[in-house]
């Protein structure tokens, strides 16, 4: 989650970790921690109840951790990694959101992404859009 304060001199891309990027990474970090804790708790205590939902929880946690780390790291490769992670995140919240809407009984409020992240104030739905916008802006700045 932490980033080394000094980036290499050859890193001409304006760092993703400055300014608003720090807030974005903070929110991602909070979701990484809460999703991991929730998934860990679910799997440790009641895995048998709904293995698919809880594995989905764990998957969401991994995606948030990957997004947090890749956003915090400098360089082009990490930007690609962050874009991939956030696209998976967006896909996840949309697919799980639709599934939970269509069949609420089979899909209880068991993951971060159920009902498009309703239980988390829809932040899981908005966060990937902001993340992709942030990455896009910094890509545009890099090509100039």
């Amino acid at each position, binding site marked *: *989650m*932490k*980033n080394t*304060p000094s980036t290499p001199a050859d890193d001409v891309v304006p760092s993703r*970790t*400055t*300014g*608003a990027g*720090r*807030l974005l*990474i*903070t*929110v991602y*970090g*909070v979701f990484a*921690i809460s999703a991991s*804790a*929730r998934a860990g*708790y*679910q799997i440790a*205590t*009641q895995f048998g109840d709904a293995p698919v939902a809880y594995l989905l929880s764990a998957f969401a946690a991994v995606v948030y951790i990957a997004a947090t780390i890749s956003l915090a790291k400098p360089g082009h490769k990490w930007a690609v990694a962050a874009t991939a992670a956030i696209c998976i995140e967006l896909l996840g919240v949309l697919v799980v959101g639709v599934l939970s809407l269509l069949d609420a009984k089979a899909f*209880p*409020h*068991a993951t971060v992404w159920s009902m498009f992240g309703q239980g988390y104030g829809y932040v899981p739905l908005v966060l990937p859009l902001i993340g992709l916008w942030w990455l896009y802006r910094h890509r545009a700045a890099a090509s100039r």
Partner: protein
Amino acid sequence: MTIDGWFIAGAIIGLASTITCAVAAVMKKKPNDITLLALAAVELFILTYAAASVVRLANGGHIAGQPWEFWGYIATAAALPVGGFYWAMMERTFWSNYVMGAVGVTVVVMMARMAQIWYGISTPA
């Protein structure tokens, strides 16, 4: 969930901390004594809540949910202001105030969950 004095106090302190930091950020101020104190207040509240919870348990109180889940929330909530402080201080711009503001509201959400665990009106996990 049962709303007790602890949750109300936590909600007031957490939201006040977030609002303080957000206002300072909107005014494009760098982190200053006021916003740092707002963050410290959240940490102080969580430590007080943790100590009080130990006392309540010692006096025959009872956690309806899983105790280790409750203490996990306490530990995480206590770590948040510290982590937020370091993450904000590594780059002191007005954005750091937004980062610190994120801590208060997160702790309020966690307080709600801790109240659920303590009183036992648990949502499906």
